[in-house]
């Protein structure tokens, strides 16, 4: 399975007469894009704004983040979600690298995130380094929050493909090939590793989609890493805080999968990805962890695995059960998790579940930690953030868990914790 990723590096985004890409400048015809995305009765209005790294801009009520992408040899992307069902991870994919598309909206019941593009807040998330195209929407009166989320999903994915289309038949700035095939014998001396990707599966609007189907419909399943990097999995859970889910952006740029793919054939033999739902009862969790570990051990034949979770404290149980099951089969296991340590970081119990087998964990920060953010010159996405902050223009203090990819459970963050 060979995937050729064509990167088009975007250095600046401006509004203009014609939507096009040339020499690092992405121009967007704002009216045309709004027109193209509108018509969904669940969304009352839409505007588009752009924020560049370093600008003194605060972006609020971010509900989802994606990236502009399209298949090079066809006009679609996100199989089963926006495009027809086809196997992701093969052929050519064009990416507008350096940009992100933010789906923004405020509605009672959904908890959006906040990103500052400059100063202290910019240190907390990788999205202060992307040029962010913000779809600022208002929900239709009385719309169900989950339905509003699905409407945003459609708008975000449609914008993703619409924007990436400008690269068609152009020469990219860089090409990266993802292919696990190697000549016979060349991998035999390398450590065999896998990745176990837990996906939230707690009901309506609380789960991602894999090829257009809810995660709860799946049992542990093997995916080729390329499939994940090429749009097979899409974040579709709006009824869960932005920072404790994997955005579509972090899934298609998954740092664990990219890190292992790029080391493949050199430092490691990357055998593949197992995705697993996070069920709601212990009996189911025992079953999924047993099956996931079995696939890793006997089908992918790995000796080491990284496991990440998605969601709140409940999913620490899945993480620990998966860890026990893998270590129980002799697979060396490393976990990534956020900590729950209270406002001052003094909490004694960092996770909601623990296990003696979990002896190698990477921390992505204390989600309760309070971050102090200085005033910004401009706010995109409304003057309030859910029921938490009353006014966003000035100096604000809020828990780290409101910053998308602050505590990134996929490991897409530079944050950690340190004993003091």
């Amino acid at each position, binding site marked *: 399975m060979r995937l050729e990723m064509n990167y088009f590096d975007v250095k600046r985004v401006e509004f203009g007469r014609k939507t096009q890409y040339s020499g690092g400048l992405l121009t967007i015809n704002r009216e045309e894009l709004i027109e193209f995305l509108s018509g969904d009765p669940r969304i009352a209005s839409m505007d588009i704004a752009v924020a560049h790294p370093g600008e003194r801009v605060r972006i609020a009520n971010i509900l989802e983040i994606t990236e502009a992408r399209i298949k090079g040899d066809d006009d679609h992307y996100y199989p089963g979600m926006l495009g027809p069902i086809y196997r992701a991870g093969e052929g050519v994919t064009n990416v507008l690298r350096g940009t992100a598309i933010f789906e923004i909206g405020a509605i009672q019941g959904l908890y959006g995130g906040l990103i500052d593009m400059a100063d202290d807040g910019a240190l907390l998330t990788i999205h202060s380094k992307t040029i962010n195209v913000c779809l600022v929407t208002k929900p239709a009166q009385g719309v169900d929050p989950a339905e509003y989320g699905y409407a945003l999903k459609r708008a975000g994915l449609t914008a993703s493909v619409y924007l990436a289309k400008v690269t068609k038949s152009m020469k990219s700035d860089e090409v990266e090939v993802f292919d696990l095939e190697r000549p016979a014998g060349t991998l035999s001396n390398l450590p065999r590793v896998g990745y176990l990707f837990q996906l939230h599966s707690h*009901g309506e609007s609380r789960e991602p989609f894999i090829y257009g189907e809810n995660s709860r419909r799946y049992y542990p399943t093997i995916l080729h890493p390329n499939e994940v990097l090429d749009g097979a999995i899409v974040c579709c859970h709006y009824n869960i805080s932005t920072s404790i889910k994997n955005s579509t952006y972090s899934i298609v740029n998954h740092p664990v999968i990219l890190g292992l793919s790029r080391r493949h054939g050199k430092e490691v033999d990357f055998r593949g990805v197992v995705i697993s739902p996070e069920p709601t009862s212990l009996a189911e969790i025992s079953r999924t962890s047993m099956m996931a570990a079995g696939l890793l051990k006997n089908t992918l034949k790995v000796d080491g695995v990284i496991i990440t979770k998605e969601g*709140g*404290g409940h999913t620490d149980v899945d993480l620990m059960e998966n860890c026990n099951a893998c270590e129980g089969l002799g697979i060396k296991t490393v976990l990534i*998790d956020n900590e729950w340590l209270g406002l001052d*970081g003094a*909490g004694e119990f960092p996770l909601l579940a623990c296990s003696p087998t979990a002896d190698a964990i*990477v921390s992505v920060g204390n989600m309760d*930690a309070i971050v102090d953010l200085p005033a910004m010159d401009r706010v995109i996405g409304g003057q309030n953030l859910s029921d938490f902050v009353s006014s966003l223009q000035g100096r604000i203090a809020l828990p780290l868990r409101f910053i998308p990819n602050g505590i990134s459970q996929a490991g897409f963050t530079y*944050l*950690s914790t340190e004993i003091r």
Partner: protein
Amino acid sequence: MIRVVHYINQFFGQIGGEEKAGVAPKLVEGTVGPGMLIDRLLGERGKVVATVICGDNYFAENPEQVAAEIVPLIEAYKPDLFIAGPAFNAGRYGVACGEICKRVRERLKITAVTGMFPENPAVDLYRRHAYIIETGNSAVGMAKAMPKMVSLACKLLSGERPGTPREEGYIPRGFKETIVTDRLAAERAIELLLKKMRGETFETEITFPELDLVSPAPPIADLKNATIALITEGGLVPKDNPDNIESSRATRWGKYSVDELRDLGCHKFMSIHRGFDTTFVNEDCNRLLPVDVIYDMEREGLFKRTFPFFFATTGVATTIDNARKIGRGIATDLAEAGISGAIVAAT
């Protein structure tokens, strides 16, 4: 110039050993005993202006009151810095150093530093209230400990951010700070995995404290004569939430009438839980706490009596410390009422 007040016990104050442990606090201008080392380490930067000496027993018999007496003695010398001990592995001395450091920081708002052996029982009591430099278990460790105490104190006074416990030599204070590293978490995870697979030593970024294992109570011997209570962590409270139970990260629990719940149900009660969709529970509370079934069973004679109160808290992202406190509170109440068994309806 940094003005330092130093605290020591009767032994280091050269008054005497255990037989003099009852002496009352005494203030001496300038240095006594180990204070000379502080002066030497500070050099031009500052000096010990006064030394407080107190017997270990005198302090231990009434720590809070004695500490309250000592703080004004210290305040009179207008110090910038308070150094206590080091107390090494001496328990009473450790408590005195910790307690006075805590009060000096709270009342005088100045920097306070002490030193102890990690197993000194005072460490757990005071590590959150003052920096405690790790020392050896006896006075032999003085020459090693004092330079670290003075160096950390100077750093704190200058407003510079102290390094990690390992860099500065202090005992972890029980805090974890969120920091920005120079490596993506995913990259750190891959490196950690490769180390673990190669069998090299590796360091986890998250460790757990020791947990209690609770063994279940034996089955009820005489169910026919049993009184059964109902408990839920589903956030089921009267609609005006009279006990202000939190909707997540609870610190409290409430005790409410089972009869009222049976008779009034969702007219009077609702779930305030923030961890699940409460729609169905708020349509019919029996879906959370099966009062209907419990009364049926009581009528059928399966057990003797339903305890007339149920207990409720919210179980979502509750810290284990608070969960323990809540659990103990409810269990104490049940034990006093002579309950035979309880059903916990979890969400």
